[in-house]
């Protein structure tokens, strides 16, 4: 009831006893409305930036462990090195490289956006495709070079 009168009141001008700060408090849909939004390139590339950035902790800890092992002894190095160069380690490293290049390119897009450049939809979409395709290309290049 309160929300209905607040909403109609909003369009018809200010009502007595109604103030902006309390409109619909606690009873409104929360942004970004995940349940009713159709997935779009912009939202997918945004959440992937978050997922890759945070998931890179696993890769980073793996690598620090490898360095610590190398600094400790030859036996310990062989253990860590064995894990990282196993098929499982290769898989982790492959997805780490893919995630890293994705996050790097998405990061560049953010640095560009921060200057209020490229925020219109057509440009945002172009940069979104560039980030997705670019990260695959860079990953292939990295695998080929290394």
């Amino acid at each position, binding site marked *: 009831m309160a929300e209905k009168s607040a909403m109609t009141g909003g369009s018809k001008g200010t009502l007595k*006893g109604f*103030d*902006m*700060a309390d409109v619909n408090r606690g009873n409104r849909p929360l942004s970004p409305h995940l349940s009713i939004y159709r997935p779009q390139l912009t939202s997918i590339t945004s959440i992937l930036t*978050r997922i890759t*950035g*945070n998931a*890179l*902790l696993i890769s*980073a*800890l793996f*690598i*620090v462990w*490898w*360095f*610590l092992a*190398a*600094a400790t002894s*030859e036996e310990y*190095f*062989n253990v860590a*090195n064995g894990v*990282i*160069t196993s098929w499982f380690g290769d898989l982790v*490293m492959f997805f780490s*490289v893919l995630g*890293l290049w994705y996050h*790097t390119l998405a*990061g*560049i897009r*953010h*640095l560009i956006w*921060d200057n209020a450049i490229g925020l219109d939809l057509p440009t945002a979409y172009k940069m979104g495709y560039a980030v997705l395709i670019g990260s695959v290309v860079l990953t292939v290049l*990295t695998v080929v*070079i*290394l």
Partner: protein
Amino acid sequence: MRYLTDRKKAVGMGSAKTGTAHFWAMKVSSVALLLLVPLFVFTFGCALGGTYEEVMAYYSRPFPAIVAALTFIIGFKHFNDGAQVLIEDYVHGMAQKISLILLTCISYAAMATGVFAIAKIAL
């Protein structure tokens, strides 16, 4: 309550006044990583797969060692600042405070371990 104006209700309820420093720290570390990450990927990629002796010799050289140390320092600072935003978005109250403290512990412990290991190998 009905004597408070909208403005009076809003004053003091706004930003925590520290967001700009966080935003700027994120920008600085991002730009630094833009240079460091490719350097690290290709130096570390060269070393990976080598024998123990080869790895020790490679990371005794100044360039790969300094690149790795800088990547750890700036990378984990950037991770700490970035993951802080993730936690602030999804975790609230006391759980948020505990998560942020744990995050800081993990980030700086990993940073220190990485730098220590590089120093021990290089020196």
